[in-house]
């Protein structure tokens, strides 16, 4: 009984000591001087989003959308024009055949 009481008291003292050390550690670390930088990293190589300029991406997106839509409309009207010309030519041929 006495032995177990002694063991519990020892355990409580150790626990209090550990908690105190843990609480003091960040403060101690904060008080230490910063570690020296062992390499320099150029800002251009950083993948952080704030280092990437927004304007070229924004302008690029709008230019690509408008250019893509314009190209498609242009291609569609060219295809439509070519087919309609062929239709008119064949209709003319058939009309001439009919007369002959």
């Amino acid at each position, binding site marked *: 009984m006495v032995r177990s009481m002694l063991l519990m008291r020892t355990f409580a003292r150790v626990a209090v000591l550990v908690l105190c050390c843990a609480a003091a550690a960040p403060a101690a670390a904060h008080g230490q001087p910063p570690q020296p930088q062992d390499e320099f990293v150029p800002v251009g190589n950083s*993948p*952080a*989003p704030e280092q*990437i300029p*927004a*304007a070229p*991406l*924004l302008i*690029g*997106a*709008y230019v*690509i*959308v*408008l250019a*893509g*839509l314009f190209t*498609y*409309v242009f291609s*569609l*009207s060219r*295809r*439509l024009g070519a*087919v*309609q010309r*062929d*239709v008119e030519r*064949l*209709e003319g*041929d*058939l009309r001439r055949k009919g007369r002959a």
Partner: protein
Amino acid sequence: MPKWFSPAAILCGLMFVVSPVLIARAPDEAAMGMVYKIYYYHMPSAWMFLLAPLVCGVSSAFFLARGRPEDDRRAWAAAELTVLFGALTLITGPLWARRAWGTWWVWDARLTSSLVGWMIGWAYLILRRYGGPGSDKLAAGVALFGAANVPFIYISVNYWRTIHPPTTVVPRLPVDMGVPLWFCVFAFLLLFMLLMTMRLRLEVARARLDALYVAHDE
């Protein structure tokens, strides 16, 4: 072209001229800054990219059921618009993501299912171009898969873990951000209708040309 085509084309052109002014006047987003404004063209493109495979799939289902060439032509036109608007969505999205997420692409459910939807659109067009006789029905079957993928693309951001914004951001937009967005949505919807009309007219002209060639040879 139908009577409404020219006024609608002029209105659509004006809307695309006015839209950059509205977008420029809209405020920047707090976390993403100016690059967020890609959203005003990205999201309407993405909605048309969801609408086109639905039109293609429903028209293909009607074509398989009734066998009418009008349904097949509508499906073919919509498949081409799937590829067009899919390309615009899949290009503008990474441009936005590069700044907002710090990466061009992530293999999450939204982006991957969108890429699959775009590839199904390409599969339809390749089948129609090189499939030979009978490819119309085979392509119609592919279009059904493309349409079935649409709800999956839409809900993917709400059900799976992703860094893509969820669908709930649209109804929660403040007025000064919502007005330019809905303006662009209507401009893209009008453009979609105009392009569908033009593309359908091309298919009708091609069918007429085929009939004339047959008559010419006889």
